[in-house]
């Protein structure tokens, strides 16, 4: 297991290096002068030049690139070009909100989506199946930012059940604040997971060993949950991993709609302000999460399917 994790981490190095390079190049191609954005359109040419010099923005690109790589390697994220605040503290203040949103949304997605998938599969072509299909279609079709705005208007503004914006302070307040944005993301996620669970479970329920279990007189619940669902979980796990990544990127729009602090919201602002250090650090962290979640999926495979464990 340890060896497998080690190998996967080594595999991740070129991925992260590629992401770092792409982010660096993309930022430098993007029009927009960070010095001009930071100092405003009334800045004198001398001030702009001084700013570029102090921030290392007038060094040759290859030199900037290697300084950037070295800084990332030594975890020196630098300071924001706009606020001069250490990027590490900006990330530390915002990242927990994004992780919190992603985890809660994923949890809600699983809690809603998997039972719906089971319900649809066990009632194939009946009313519950059609109901789940309609729910999935709606879930797929509505953009999450639009759904979020609708939820805000209905549940926060009109009913007053949830706060309009923010991230909350203590444990309960944080849960209260995260519920609606997480539910928004979970709607899309549960539509996806519900369809996936249904398809996968239907396939498994048609297998010989399920027929054998039924022939032996096993109770239907046992057949479905013990023999069927467990074996249907492998593709669902893959889907869950992919959906977790989608939630992470989807959180950007949701953080904006609900005005939650978070990495996505920070990144959007940093891109508008051409705040290179913040964008670079944010992108690297997102890349790290992709690698980390993929690793988790691999580990989950091994836990769920003993055949993979034997092969590895």
């Amino acid at each position, binding site marked *: 297991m340890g060896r497998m994790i080690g190998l996967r981490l080594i595999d991740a190095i070129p991925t992260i290096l590629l992401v770092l390079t792409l982010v660096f190049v993309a930022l430098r191609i993007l029009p927009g002068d960070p010095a001009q954005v930071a100092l405003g359109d009334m800045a004198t040419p001398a*001030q702009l030049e001084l700013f570029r010099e102090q921030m290392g923005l007038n060094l040759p690109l290859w030199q900037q690139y290697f300084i950037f790589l070295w800084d990332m390697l030594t975890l020196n994220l630098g300071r924001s070009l706009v606020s001069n*605040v250490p990027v590490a503290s900006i990330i530390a203040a915002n990242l927990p909100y994004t992780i919190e949103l992603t985890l809660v949304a994923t949890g809600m997605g699983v809690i809603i989506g998997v039972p719906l998938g089971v319900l649809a599969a066990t009632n194939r072509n009946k009313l519950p199946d059609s109901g789940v299909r309609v729910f999935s279609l709606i879930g797929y079709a509505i953009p999450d930012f639009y759904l979020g705005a609708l939820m805000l208007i209905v549940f926060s503004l009109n009913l*007053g059940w949830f706060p309009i914006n923010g*991230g909350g*302070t203590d444990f309960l307040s944080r849960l209260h604040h995260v519920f609606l944005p997480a539910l928004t993301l979970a709607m899309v996620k549960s539509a996806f997971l519900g369809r996936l669970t249904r398809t996968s479970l239907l396939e498994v329920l048609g297998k010989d060993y399920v027929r054998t279990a039924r022939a032996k007189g096993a109770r239907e619940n046992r057949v479905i949950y013990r023999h069927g669902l467990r074996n249907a979980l492998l593709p669902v796990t893959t889907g869950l991993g992919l959906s977790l990544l989608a939630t992470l990127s989807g959180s950007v729009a949701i953080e904006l709609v609900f*005005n939650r602090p978070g990495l996505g919201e920070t990144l959007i602002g940093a891109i508008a302000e051409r705040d290179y250090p913040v964008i670079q650090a944010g992108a690297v962290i997102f890349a790290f999460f992709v690698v980390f979640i993929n690793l988790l999926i691999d580990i989950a495979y091994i836990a769920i399917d003993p055949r993979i464990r034997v092969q590895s």
Partner: protein
Amino acid sequence: MALTRRRFLTNTTAAGVATFATLQFGAPGAYAQTEEGTISIALAARAPSGINPQQSGLTGGDNWAIYQVFNGLVQSRPGTFAVTPDDFQPALAESWDVSEDARTWTYHLRQGVQFHHGYGEMTSRDVMFTYGRQIDPDVISAGKVLFNNIESIDAPDDYTFVVTLVRPDPLFNASTAVTLAASILSQDAFEEKGEDFNFDPVGTGPYFVESTDESSILLTAFPDYWDEPAATEHVRVSFIADTTARTLAFASGQVDMIEGVRQPGWIPTMRQRDPDTIFDATAPGSFNTLHLNLEYEPLDDIRVRKAFRYAIDSAQIASAFGELSTPMVGIIAPQFAGSVTREELPEELQYEYSPEKAMELLAEAGYPDGITIPAYTSQREDYSTIMLIIQEQLRASNINLDLDIIDHATMHAENNLAKNSVALNSSSFPPVPTLPFLQRLAAPADAKPDGSGQGNYSHYGVAIPGIDDLLDQAQDEPDFDKRIEVIEEIERKVLEDLPLLGIITLSYVIARNPRIDLGFDVESGYAYWPLNQARIVS
């Protein structure tokens, strides 16, 4: 230890709960909530960039907090712009004298003014430190350009501060002393705190900074304030960038005031929801002007530029924004000294809206079938709205503006590389009539393809003779009234050459819950105002 399914599920669940719990207690931060004895205002910005008036990259939200925490040497009457030299009121300076040549300004400082957090009395040493940083070329600071005219500063004693200017300036209080960038810092606090001063500032204002987090700044009334203590104990300045989230926060009563949206229809929609909502708008707000690139064919032809002027109906654009906007005639906003009115102009410079005249001029210039001109503008709501209306108006005169709408920072970058043919610009200027011309039409500000220039996207004074001599004359004139006469001459010259068209002014607007009484009416001024007289009335 072998990994089993049961153990995996148990461990991951435990890890998930532990992570969530850690995040709950590990992350700092508090979002704006309705709090007892607190006035809350939400501004259209992502997060605080700093509460240091000299920090670069400050947003409008930061400015609101800074204005409550710091004072300048002089101030204008709350809710107004000081337009003439007599309009200024004492602040940290009790009085001031100006020499006859308007080059030497002597400020007599108020005695006994205390800095927050026990940093002692404000003296000329702090004023020297503040202005000294702004005139030091090796220090990067906000608003430095406003201090360019200072030749030297001096402090003959603890309560006297003397500024000597390179050129006379009868409006030095307006161009420099009253600006946020000239807010007086505590030298001791600045030197002691270093980088931390940015979020833990020390000023002399009616409020001090109680706490900051990633999305708001909490201010508390300063009991030793030199003037009347603040009427309300706390002010929370929150940052909500998204328009919908900000509007909903206001509609739900979570915040008392929000920065409005400068888009047609926003105020009527808000009024429909709650007719009692109060809208405080500054006039003039931003100057929205249209640069015509004199180096771009066919805009190098005065007949084509005149066709543009006749084809654009500024009054119609202004009416689209309702009470937030006024049409501009020249380059100076109609509310400021130096502006010209249509009635006082000769007929040929009045440019009454006339698509027919525009088409005649185009035909005369050799374009009887009209012209197509590529241009781009920002996706920011005010820019895109104005430019889309202009595009439609021009179409009626056979001028096809092939318009791209692009990211805001990209637009500025491309404009600075002198790439745009028709560039809309939105800038807020203090009531210093030389400033818009110096920034937008003077030859030294010419935008250059290598990006080393500034905001003269028309290339006026370079492509054709401009107004530089007149600007020099205005800047050398110590008498305010005579200076204004030269400015009016410049306005007329610009209207003759049409390198830059005045389109509309667009007010900065704050929606206010009627439970908050500001203590004064907002008429004009910068995009922030004092909250020390504001109280919760119901």
